């Protein structure tokens, strides 16, 4: 085991060397490399700097001047006081719990619903399959923003306004996800399922035992983007939720900003609470995030 790992590592090191030496086998001249890193660092400062500035602001105590000039990039006496104060002013942990519930429910329904529908569209023959696919494509083309008022009225009739169920329901099986799963299932070779059919497997068994394990990657992409979409969503929860006890984090932050706009430390602490879980998730599962961009944009 360990011997193999070492071998792997050596091979990887070699391939990195190869990549690095590309372009005619020569190392790029040193000044070019320095320039490249300089550019990378400048872009890094632009893209990540604002997050770090927010983090720094959230850690500055009440005694420290956050408007000092020149600005102090690091807090002189870092403190978590602001996080405690946010929790006193608004039930920020309840909001986080609500966001988590909404996001997990959205993952579950999207994964199950999109896999089922995608499998039927890709692998089962029936009259009206083309039409069914068209329905999902049409649903994908309708901008959510243009139907929110009607969705709001539908929720009102169902008595689901101001509930977390109402937040989850309209997006709980995304048309794009159904079509992504359909593409993934279409790429599995037929012969495997035919063999299973000959062995007496019914549609459900072929779905769960053969097709699903073969599309794990796409399922992960759907799950991650469902989580991120629900956690980050703003417009729809803003319209559906009116009672503070049901707020999700994004709506709670908006409320915090509207009510305590003059206290930047608290707003900063709130935003860090909202963004930290997603950054951790992203750090752990990067390649699925990147894969999702490719599949969602190009095939969708």
């Amino acid at each position, binding site marked *: 085991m360990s011997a193999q790992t070492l071998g792997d590592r050596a091979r990887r090191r070699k391939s990195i060397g190869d990549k*690095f030496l*590309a372009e005619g086998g020569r190392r790029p001249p040193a000044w070019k490399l320095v320039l*490249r*890193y300089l*550019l*990378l660092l400048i*872009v*890094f400062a632009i*893209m990540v700097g604002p997050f770090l*500035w*927010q983090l720094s*602001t959230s850690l500055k105590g009440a005694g420290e001047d956050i*408007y000092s000039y020149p600005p102090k990039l690091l807090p002189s006496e870092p403190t978590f006081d602001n996080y405690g104060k946010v929790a006193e002013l608004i039930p920020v942990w309840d909001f986080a719990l609500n966001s988590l519930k909404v996001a997990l429910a959205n993952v579950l329904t999207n994964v199950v619903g999109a896999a089922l*529908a995608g499998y*039927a569209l890709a692998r*089962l*023959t029936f009259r009206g399959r083309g039409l*069914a696919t068209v*329905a*999902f494509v049409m*649903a994908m*083309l*309708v*901008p959510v*923003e*243009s139907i*929110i*008022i*009607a969705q*709001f*009225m*539908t929720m*009102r009739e169902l008595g689901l306004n101001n509930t977390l169920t109402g937040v989850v*329901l*309209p*997006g709980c*099986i995304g048309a794009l996800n*159904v079509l992504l799963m359909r593409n993934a299932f279409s790429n599995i*070779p*037929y*012969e495997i399922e035919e063999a299973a059919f000959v062995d007496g497997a019914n*549609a459900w068994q072929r779905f769960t035992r053969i097709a699903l*394990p073969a599309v794990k990657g796409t399922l992960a992409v759907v799950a991650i983007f469902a989580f991120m979409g629900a956690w*980050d969503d703003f*417009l729809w929860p*803003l*319209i559906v939720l009116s009672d503070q006890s049901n707020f999700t984090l994004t709506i709670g*932050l908006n409320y915090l900003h509207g009510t305590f706009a003059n206290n930047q430390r608290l*707003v900063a602490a709130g*935003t860090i609470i*909202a*963004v930290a879980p*997603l950054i951790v998730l992203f*750090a752990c599962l*990067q390649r699925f*995030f*990147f894969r999702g*961009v*490719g599949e969602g*944009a190009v095939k969708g």
Partner: protein
Amino acid sequence: MSDTSTRNGAPVAKTGPATAPSQPAAPVKGPRPAGPPGRRRIRTHLPSTPWLFLLPGFSIIGGFVLFPFFSTVSSSFTDQRTLIAGKWVGGANYQELWHDDMFWIALRNSLLYIVGVVPPLVILPLLLAMLVQRYVPGISFFRSAFYTPVVASVVVVGLIWVWMLDDRGLVNAVLGAIGVGPVAFLSDQWLLLISAMLVTVWKGLGYYMIIYMAALGNVPKELHEAAAVDGAGAIRRFFTVTVPAVRSTMVLVAALSSVNAFKVFSEVYLMAGPNGGPGGEDTTLVMLIKQVGTGLSGRVGYASAISVVVFVITLGLMLLVLKADKKEGDA
């Protein structure tokens, strides 16, 4: 941890191409998009099975997307309010739109948003992708870092920039150091809109960078080498090799970013406030839909008419960009 799952996933995917050639006896049928091969009518499942698989998806899509869409169109011809069922008023809502100053302001802002956001989002991510495409040690760290704003919620991003662009915030401190006096990013009507555009561009860069990276990976290296041998400099090669090779991706990015720009809501709502800045001059169309259509006295019929306009223009934008792509492709 994440490495293990790659290895679990990979063999499954690889069985695909591997099994196909191992059965030379089976007649080759070419690519079969879906469904068992042509004439062989073997029942592999009950007639009702597909519909059971589709039931959850159909109920959600039908009940919460397609039905609301049709009801939006139909209620745009009524004077429905949140608590009052409407009656048919014909095109009155659309006539009122025509004479509604607020609607024209919102339409102007949403269209301006496309003009301000799309060119930078087509060009900057391409340059960024070229910067991170080549391998240098630590490059994957930079790629991930540049993607961070995409992962964050638009609310988080908006509030971060509200603080950055504050009269006494970091940006104004830096500007002050070079002698430019505090800029009122968040109180001037036009600066507000421009600031919101900046935030949209900043948040979108990483997303489109990833799309461009996939396209750049497909540009054959030989093209660059041949051009370099012929004496083309880096800038010349960018315009003669890279840009033509990623042109269709640029069109895709233009289509995606213009549709998203036109539907802008959150950035402007957070930075300019729920009422759309001074005198509502920064209201966008989606903000107007929310203002008009929600609340106890919400004018659902009128908001639906605005929604229909948003839908039609969004669809028009997509068709326009795709058509431009086709025409250029023919030429």
